[in-house]
């Protein structure tokens, strides 16, 4: 009996290892290039943030003015880092959960290169002044079909992997991943067609642009982050999802509510009123599926405080889950019509983006990356200290941006804007502490992610620790649950 289970355990490990090997090139490519774009995006974000309070910074060259650096920063965060981290996690997660090694790593790798090329050209386009000027789709307009094609070449294999899955059970993460894979082309194609191709009323184009931003958050980044956190929480703690049927309810709630959000961005504009109020209500209501997933993940990991503290993957995923719950609260605060009057044209939108993209999505992706990379490179993370500082500087940075700059700053800026008898300088002055605070916070996050990129790049070069021990975020070595540490090759020889 014990022999049997040992064999199946070995077979299991062999299959996992097979899957990891089959996907190591695209996954590492997505992660590492994503992290590089993230570092660049944050550098541009720091520049843009400094420009808001010290416009003379870096002189008067048009390439580094606020209008270009800010949009390049945000779009790199979305398409350079966010989408690529999502691709890496999704292809690996789907293969693992479907128990199928991938046969199409090459195609995905090529598509990944196309995606990166398009992102690079798009960023140069923005910085050289050829951006489209449309929020969240600022790349020059010829870029979006290329991105969509590259996406299709990646996502199709995720869906195929699911189709040929070996296991009968469909895990909750697979639902979320499948949802995201199918929603993205719908959202992306619809929005880009209406905004960039069809000749529709510009007001409606702006409203659709607002919808695009929210749909991308709620129907792409959110489900992938939730999928990853459900998996990591269950995997690392070795416990089942706290309540699985409830988790399914959360998925369907997100699927039903998510697509309605976004048009409250144009509140007060002469578009049909129900578009705005439905957008407001949906952005608030998305909090329900977020809280369902968030509490479910937290309860899965509850009572395992030590594991949460020690495992980098779980620690980041749980932090991302708290970010998700904070995002639910942020939706309630910022999307209700009463506060929209204040926050509509303030820091609130950017703060919400930062919380969704970094505080929630990116933290979950970091968790997944810290889990996946040691498996596909078969090396352990080099430095626990580096991971720890990545974690804490990220947390401090994003919390400072959201709790201080966004919550306080948005309302102060909004109420200053409403004093329309005052000169605009009054608004700038009253927002000054928050913009300076934002610069400081971005510097923290930039610092964190430059080291994250180097750490990841070293892992990609297979310079990770060749150890039987995972890199845990603990300082003492005696209490390691994985036994005596040693070089795996030495242990192997000793065992043989």
């Amino acid at each position, binding site marked *: 009996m014990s022999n049997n289970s040992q064999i199946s355990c070995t077979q299991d490990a062999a299959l996992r290892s097979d899957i990891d090997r089959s996907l190591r090139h695209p996954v590492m490519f997505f992660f590492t290039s994503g992290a590089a774009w993230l570092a660049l995006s944050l550098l541009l974000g720091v520049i843009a943030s400094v420009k808001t309070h010290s416009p003379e910074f870096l002189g008067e060259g048009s390439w580094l003015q606020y209008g270009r650096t800010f949009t390049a920063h945000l779009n790199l965060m979305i398409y350079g880092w966010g989408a690529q981290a999502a691709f890496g996690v999704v292809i690996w997660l789907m293969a693992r959960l479907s128990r199928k090694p991938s046969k199409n790593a090459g195609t995905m790798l090529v598509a990944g290169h196309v995606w990166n090329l398009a992102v690079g050209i798009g960023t140069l386009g923005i910085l050289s002044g050829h951006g489209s000027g449309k929020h969240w789709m600022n790349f020059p307009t010829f870029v979006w079909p290329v991105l969509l094609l590259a996406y299709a070449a990646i996502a199709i294999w995720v869906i195929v992997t699911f189709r040929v899955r070996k296991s009968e059970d469909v895990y909750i993460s697979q639902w979320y991943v499948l949802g995201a894979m199918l929603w993205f082309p719908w959202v992306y194609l619809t929005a880009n067609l209406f905004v960039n191709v069809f000749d529709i009323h510009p007001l409606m184009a702006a409203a659709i642009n607002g919808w695009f931003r929210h749909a991308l958050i709620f129907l792409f980044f959110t489900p992938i982050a939730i999928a990853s956190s459900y998996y990591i929480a269950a995997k690392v703690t070795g416990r089942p*999802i706290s309540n699985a049927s409830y988790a399914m309810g959360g998925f369907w709630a997100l699927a039903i509510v998510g697509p309605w959000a976004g048009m409250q961005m144009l509140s007060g504009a002469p578009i049909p009123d*129900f578009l705005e*109020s439905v957008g407001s209500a949906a952005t*608030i209501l998305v909090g329900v599926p977020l809280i369902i997933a968030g*509490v479910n993940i937290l309860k899965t990991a509850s009572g395992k405080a030590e594991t949460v503290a020690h495992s980098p993957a779980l620690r980041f995923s749980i932090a991302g889950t708290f970010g998700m719950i904070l995002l639910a609260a942020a939706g309630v605060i910022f999307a209700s*019509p009463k506060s929209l009057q204040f926050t509509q044209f303030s820091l609130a939108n950017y703060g919400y983006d930062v919380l969704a993209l970094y505080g929630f999505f990116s933290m979950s992706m970091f968790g997944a990356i810290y889990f996946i990379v040691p498996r596909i490179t078969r090396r352990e993370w080099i430095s626990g200290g580096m991971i720890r500082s990545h974690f804490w500087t990220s947390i401090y940075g994003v919390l400072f941006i959201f709790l201080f700059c966004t919550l306080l700053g948005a309302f102060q800026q909004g109420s200053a804007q409403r004093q*329309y008898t005052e000169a605009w300088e009054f608004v700038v002055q009253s927002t000054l502490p928050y913009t300076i605070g934002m610069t400081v916070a971005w510097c923290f996050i930039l610092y964190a992610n430059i080291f994250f990129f180097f750490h990841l790049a070293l892992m990609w070069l297979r310079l990770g620790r060749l150890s039987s021990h995972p890199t845990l975020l603990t300082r003492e070595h005696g209490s390691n649950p994985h036994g005596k540490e040693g070089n795996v090759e030495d242990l*192997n020889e000793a065992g043989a």
Partner: protein
Amino acid sequence: MSDSSQNKPDLDDNTNVLVNASAVKRENNVLKDGSEPISLWVMLGSALIVLVAGGALFNSNLFNYDELTAASYTRQAQPSDGSGGVVPIPAHKAYDKVGAKLAKASCLACHGSNGEGAGAVPPLAGSEWVNGPSMRTAMIILNGLDGPIEVAGKSYSGNMPSQGSGLGAKELAGILNFVRGNFGNEASFITMEMAQTAIDSSKERNGGQMTVSELNSNYNVDIEGAEFDPNTLVDPISLEPVEADEISPH
């Protein structure tokens, strides 16, 4: 996947897959689904969120297409001097604004929206009773008018009720300047002091509507008062002239 392939070293490795894949070997399995009870926090949080969302949805115009923008997004712009105070404007504009509001309700309903008159109601435009001596105009407004009257070459049998109730100096001056300065009329400017003089002399009467003969015998004069340049800058609310040094530089 045969046994032999597992035991062979990988292409770019010199060791067996399973040997140094320690991360893979120590992994937990993903367990079958749990079914712990639903957390109270989810219930409370969701209820709160649904409540707020319902408020956002149903406190709006929804499918009312007549209102283009929500009420809270429209605002009457006020002139400003940049420091929160109001910008002074020329007197004739300020008085005109005050008068236009009142005249619309009190005068133009009968005398026509352009002061052209209507049927039995004589016109304001080009009327000698409006453009002539200002005391006559003021007394008609304050007391009304009864009996036959000739206006702009046509005879009317007037019965105009008094419009004087609630009129202060500011309002009367506003109305006078409005009717005497619009519809092609170009009569002299009436200050608030002048309007007060007219109100005072109206009070000395014993009430009742004016007649043409009384107007011509007692009130056929311009209201007495100091000369006033209609272009003087005044506060748009109080209509008081603003001293030059009170105006902040721009």
